């Protein structure tokens, strides 16, 4: 029970907030509960796609595969490839940062790894989810700009760190 509380602090905080607000403002809180539930039902199909697409990518674009791709890449081509690959990488930071660290140790250029980390901000499986909330024009523009900036960021990092 204590562990559950610890690992789901956020969920329990929201539940407790609802409990208090239900006593104080039952009608408004009910509307919030209804809206939140409708939002979940509306986003559920896309959310299911996100988790299954992410696990598909995780299997077929494993850290080993990425290392193989990035091992000998240099120059602008390597940086752009790094950025594009970065958008497809899925998983939590504590899996990815060690991967990027290994790439650097194995001699990958800072610009390539920097671009990858920059492009990691675009999480391809989540794009339709983002579009569900913000619309396709927004997410399209954001993706293009972030990808472009990732390449610039890679080169700037290399310049500043060398």
């Amino acid at each position, binding site marked *: 029970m204590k562990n559950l509380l610890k690992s*789901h602090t*956020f*969920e329990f905080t*929201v*539940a407790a*907030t*609802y409990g208090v*607000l239900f006593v104080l*403002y039952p009608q*408004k*809180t009910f509307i*919030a509960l*209804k*809206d*939140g*539930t409708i*939002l*979940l039902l509306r986003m559920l*199909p*896309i*959310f*299911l*796609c996100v*988790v*299954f*697409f*992410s*696990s*598909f990518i*995780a*299997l077929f674009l494993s850290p080993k595969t990425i290392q193989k791709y990035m091992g000998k890449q240099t120059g602008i081509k390597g940086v752009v490839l790094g950025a594009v690959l970065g958008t497809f990488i899925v998983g939590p*930071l*504590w899996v990815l*940062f060690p991967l*990027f*660290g290994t790439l650097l140790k194995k001699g990958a250029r800072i610009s390539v790894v*920097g671009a990858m*980390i*920059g492009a990691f*901000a675009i999480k391809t499986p*989540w794009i*339709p*989810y*983002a579009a*569900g*909330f*913000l*619309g*396709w*024009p*927004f997410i399209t*523009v*954001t993706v293009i*700009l*972030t990808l472009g*900036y990732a390449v610039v*960021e890679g080169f700037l*990092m290399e310049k*500043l*760190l060398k």
Partner: protein
Amino acid sequence: MNVWGAVIYGIVVVASYIYAFKKDKEKGKKGLQKGWKQFLKQLPFVFSIFLLIGLFDVFIPKSVVVSVLGRGRGFLAILNAALVGSVVGGPVSSVYPLGAVLLKKGATLAVAAVFMNAWIMVGFISMPFEISIFGKKFVFVRNVLAFIGAIIIGILTGLILTGSAI
């Protein structure tokens, strides 16, 4: 649009698993299992975020958001959004609905975009971990560049889509 997005995405997912099962049956199975496990793991959080968005929508008046993140605040709103987004952080599943509700409540597109970009690009909470792998200098340079990038990208997004930089 939402429906079509889901339909097309569904087709992509089904196609990718047909490919996976053809290539390696065990791998395909493992993917499905992993996906389902992630679904069950993330669902409570996602539902809680949506419920929180519901509360935000009902209880926070538009005027509050406008006074902090509205057009009238100028560049200060952008800076606030970047700082808050950098410090808070959290799963991506939460940032897009938060951005959407901020927009609905009167934040400008550029400000909401900066907030979401900073949230995703700058990792304040994960910094100690990042330092343990890359060293202080690398992490400092990366995060400063990410912070500046979050602002630039957000302002450009606002300019392109609404014609307003703030």
